[in-house]
């Protein structure tokens, strides 16, 4: 099964999505030093193609489970900017009433049923949510995003086995950015191993793709969605990519000695946005004017959301011990 390349409109939408995510992250980088966002932020600059390429296939009724590094996934899945920012600012109007902070976004209206910041923790939950759809006869698909580090947890293995066994409509998307915090993957996984290859040993398809090529991501995810919806079961996608900022916070961690600078330089040249941009401009699918208009729009919605977030009331004492039980 090979899907046709996406049409110009879709390509443009993918591009715009990546741009939106990048725009959001850059704003957070600017705002963070104010120290009003009092929750750790895990930026996804450099990895926008995965969120954009996968979520382009999803509807509100489809579900995603993301991780600590969730901004891109949430935006691409259609989460309200206002609620997201208000949560960052610890406000009652935030998507978790200020209780979750940046690491636990929740927006059931667009298929985000909560988020775990325990590495690997969201993977079995995603399998279960997808299983519920299968049991209830709901033709929706569930995506679980996770990092390369998460594949080292037992939960990853247990989830693949069960999903394959029951042919559950779930898509495992591993964003292999080659690091877990400051530990390179070679220090954590044997060089001769392979995450994508593991899929076959459970009897499910596994694909290693260039995670910085949004078209490649889009095609791989499209196939996986079709498989899932046809009842053929899960797929594992390993998308190789790279993050530009430190593990947490708007910091250049090559300057703090956490990662080598030349590696980052190399990966910046493979920027997923620039990559597509060149192609779209040369094919005249995109004009610089489009971009200017979008940037303005992004600016405006962000300012609105920021105003909302900053002027909302801080989460109040009545929140402290409510919602422990439903």
């Amino acid at each position: 099964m090979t899907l046709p390349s996406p049409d110009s409109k879709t390509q443009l939408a993918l591009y715009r999505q990546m741009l939106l995510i990048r725009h959001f992250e850059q704003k957070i980088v600017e705002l963070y030093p104010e120290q009003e966002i009092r929750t750790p932020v895990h930026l996804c600059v450099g990895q926008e193609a995965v969120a954009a390429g996968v979520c382009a296939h999803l509807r509100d009724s489809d579900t995603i489970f993301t991780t600590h590094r969730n901004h891109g996934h949430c935006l691409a899945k259609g989460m309200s900017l206002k609620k997201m920012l208000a949560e960052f600012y610890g406000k009652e109007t935030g998507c978790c009433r200020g209780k979750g902070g940046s690491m636990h976004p929740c927006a059931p209206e667009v298929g985000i049923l909560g988020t775990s910041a325990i590495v690997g923790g969201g993977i079995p939950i995603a399998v279960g949510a997808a299983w519920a759809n299968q049991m209830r006869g709901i033709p929706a698909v569930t995506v679980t995003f996770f990092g390369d580090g998460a594949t080292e947890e037992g939960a990853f293995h247990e989830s693949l086995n069960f999903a394959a066994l029951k042919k559950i409509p779930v898509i495992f998307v591993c964003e292999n950015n080659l690091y877990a915090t400051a530990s390179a993957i070679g220090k954590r996984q044997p060089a001769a191993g392979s995450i994508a290859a593991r899929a076959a040993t459970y009897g499910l398809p596994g694909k290693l793709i260039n995670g910085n090529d949004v078209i490649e991501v889009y095609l791989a995810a499209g196939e996986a969605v079709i498989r899932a919806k046809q009842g053929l079961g899960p797929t594992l996608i390993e998308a190789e990519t790279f993050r530009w900022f430190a593990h947490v916070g708007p910091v250049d961690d090559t300057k703090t000695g956490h990662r080598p600078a030349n590696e980052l330089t190399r990966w910046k040249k493979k920027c997923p946005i620039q990559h597509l941009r060149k192609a779209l401009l040369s094919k005249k699918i995109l004009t610089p004017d489009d971009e200017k208009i979008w940037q303005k729009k992004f600016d405006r919605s962000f300012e609105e959301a920021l105003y909302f977030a900053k002027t909302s009331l801080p989460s109040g004492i009545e929140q402290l011990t409510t919602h422990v039980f439903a």
Partner: protein
Amino acid sequence: MPWTTPSIKISTPSAITQGIRRLSYRQAIYEAQHQLLSTDKRVFLLGEGIDDASGVFGTTLGLTDEFTSQRVVDTPIAENGITGIAMGAAINGMRPILIHMRPDFVIISLDQLLNHAAKWFYMSGGQVSVPLTIRCVIGRGWGSAAQHSQNIQGLLTHLPGLKILMPATAHDAKGLLIAAVRDPNPVVILEHRWLFDKIGHVPEDLYATPIGRANICRYGSDVTIVATSIMVHEAMLAAETLANEDCNVEVIDLRSVKPWDENCVAASVRKTGYLIVADTGHQYGGVAAEITARITELCFSSLRAAPQRITLPEAPVPAASSLEEIYFPGQSDIIKAAKDILSG
């Protein structure tokens, strides 16, 4: 097999079994599941070996045939993953009942249970709740030893977000299971295997025993004994012996160890002035510690002596039957505690 029969004898004190329709604890659990599966499409059962010929000590016998393997699901041996999977199904419209044959296996799943299920509703700001029921068979004896017969209520009650139930009667085995499945939160039920043959009154309808409400099994004015699970029966036996010596014991079956019925216990202690807590678990920070600490806070001026805790020794569970016999406390320990506490 020999290890499926209790090594201790439990007679059935009359106060608990009055009533008309009588079922065993095992049948009561079976009936609750059968009725839940029949009336609620969202309910399904899952667990390791759930559909084998022994049917989880007889509590799931025949359910796969009747409701299919889609709704009574045998699982791989992967407790943490399966707990997460059950939780995922719970947050997306289902009402899973996950069954563990031994409490020790719950310990493997504490990441999903404590880091996830217990906190999900709170972290989501009250948007996504986790209606997950976990049944766990507890037990002891026949050299099951350190990794197959622990008491885990003390572990599960500590962090906020879980409800923990310990039915002592057939009536509550059914009623609490139904209450758990109806509850929109994660609930763990610890069912004692030595009670599976215990007969009691069990109404036919789909009734719920309220979570958080204790049951006074025996009224008395001299000393309050709060007990959990099988210790309720030990306490009732102790109470009969003590009654012969003119000591009238009030026995409270806690039923729900978290939340627990502090009003009921406090009222009793205010009346008797003496408290003994008999739990199946360990001492340090266990259920008995919490009840003791809390009742001391609430009833200090009524207490005429320090509350006493009857719990396990500070050691893992040993295998040899000679050691098992002395490891697990019983009615004689309760009688001794009552005499000690009353004699100051």
